[in-house]
């Protein structure tokens, strides 16, 4: 039984059609890594799944835990168990990190003690009373995003470039946090959390082993395969080369 089913999804941003016909099926416990050239619509897909109103769904639908969430407001999707870590979250003046963590803990049903415990783990205790994302470094933004996710305890975890702009020391900490969120430390049968990770550079894959990789190309999921293989192909042959090879293997693809 799938946790997420994206069916024939078309999405526009402004007047521009970014996603044409995306199909994606994720089972509980599965983690996908999503590759694709710049502008191929990776972030668009995650934003559409979480319900960002700036990304307009013009066709198809999004099913989460058997519920059609296509037209649900973001906070309702969050309550059902979808969580996202943004690549570039906004700064909000006067709203402190601790305030946002408390909103998140309410979703996850956690206490103040858990907030403190996890904040310590993510090395964010010094930032609790600072305005959210104001003057945070690249690594701090990512740690803060993952900390928020931990407190929401979602079943489907969307990670938009969790490793971009992060130094090596932080990548290890972030990798560890992602593994925990996605229950990669448990054996495959008992995993229930699912995830979609966008990674441009692929650094995070040194720490997190995903089950599948998908390439988003030209507004569609062009191929799905083993993450290591696909990353190697992209590195050696580029997206174009990779695509040719992929399409050969997928006789029935468009």
């Amino acid at each position, binding site marked *: 039984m799938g946790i997420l089913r994206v069916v024939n999804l078309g999405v526009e941003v402004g007047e521009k059609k970014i996603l044409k016909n995306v199909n994606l099926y994720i089972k509980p416990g599965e983690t996908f890594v999503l590759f694709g050239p710049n502008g191929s619509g990776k972030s668009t897909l995650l934003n559409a799944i979480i319900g960002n109103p700036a990304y307009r769904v013009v066709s198809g639908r999004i099913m989460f835990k058997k519920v059609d969430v296509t037209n649900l407001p973001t*906070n309702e999707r969050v309550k059902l168990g979808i969580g996202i870590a943004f690549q570039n979250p906004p700064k909000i003046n*006067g709203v402190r990190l601790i305030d946002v963590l408390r909103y998140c803990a309410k979703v996850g049903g956690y206490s103040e003690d858990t907030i403190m415990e996890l904040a310590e783990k993510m090395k964010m205790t010094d930032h609790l009373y600072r305005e959210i994302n104001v003057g945070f470094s690249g690594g701090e933004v990512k740690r803060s995003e993952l900390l928020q996710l931990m407190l929401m305890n979602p079943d489907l975890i969307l990670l938009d470039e969790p490793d971009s702009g992060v130094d090596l020391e932080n990548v290890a900490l972030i990798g560890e946090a992602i593994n925990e969120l996605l229950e990669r430390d448990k054996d495959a049968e008992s995993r229930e959390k699912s995830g979609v990770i966008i990674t441009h550079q692929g650094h995070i894959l040194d720490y997190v082993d995903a089950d599948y990789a998908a390439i988003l190309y030209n507004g569609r999921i062009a191929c799905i395969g083993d993450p290591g293989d696909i990353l190697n192909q992209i590195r050696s042959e580029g997206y174009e080369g990779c695509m040719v090879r992929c399409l050969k293997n997928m006789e029935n693809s468009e």
Partner: protein
Amino acid sequence: MSEEYGELGVDKRRLREVGIELDGSKRSGAYLQEDQEAKTFASFFEGVEVMSIQEAMKKYEWVKDYFWKILRRDQDEYTREADTEDVNGYFIRALPDAKVEIPVEACLYLKKAEKQRVHNIVIAEENSELNIISGCTSHPGVAGMHIGLSEFFVKKNAKLSFTMIHSWDTTIEVRPRTAIKIEEGGSFISNYILLNPVKLVQTYPTAYVEKDGTVIFNSIIVALEDSVVDSGARAVLMGENSSAEIVSRTISKGGKVIARGHIIGEAPEVKGHLECKGLMLSESGLIHAIPELEAKYPNVELSHEAAIGKIAEEEIFYLMSRGLSRDEATSAIVRGFMEIEIKGLPQALKEAIDRTLEIAEKDLL
């Protein structure tokens, strides 16, 4: 103390709304004026004097020397209007070296007067520390005008904070006239909060800052439909190494706001910063930010930033992705917008401000 106020027939709920705390254990002194009459005043702390200005004139020969010292009688029709025999107001004075962290409460209540004329004198003597919270309000349904003249004297190395919460009505016109003299090494912090509807407020306090002195003006202003608020602050940096900071957060929800700020560098080595931020919450209304800087020496550091906008959709969406509904997210952002980090303010005053903001938030959204 609080029972006494109840007997005066003052609407207690109304006073609470303005953040007025009458409990003697939480205040170092209190003053309550209804129309022209000083209903009660008391000091609960050795180092501070609290009385009506009429009483102070009788008690001290020298008080008259402070009267009209930094405000001009002929400044405008309102100063002239208030220059009458029956003018009353508070006299609050921290004695030299007295450190009075617990705030003094000063309340001006317009009950039935057509025109309430007030003249206040506040003195923080050398090396003293004084905190005042002032609530001004009117009896529901009463129409009238409040003219409030205030002269503040911050002596050498003294610290004075003045937090004023206005809570008028759509029938009240308010014309404060304020001047502050800050002597060498002294500091003055003003917090002005206006969140309720009002017919008109027009105020432009001026601080004269001597060597090594500091002035900070913070204001949080909400203009609801039909309210007109013309509010600003001016700092004249007269002495070397003096500094000024003027910060305003204005919100228009149908009302009209003019947010003024003016820093004048009249001495070398002075520093000043002006920050006007405006938030438009409805399609109607107006915010006009007028920041002005003036330098008369080359080695001054004066800057300003002004920005007006609406709530960013991106911020609402971000908080919704953390479980808040659209309304909750909007409310959290507006609340954040009104949050000014006020340094050097006692906890009791921070709490009073927070409480007022919380109440106002409900009306706003």
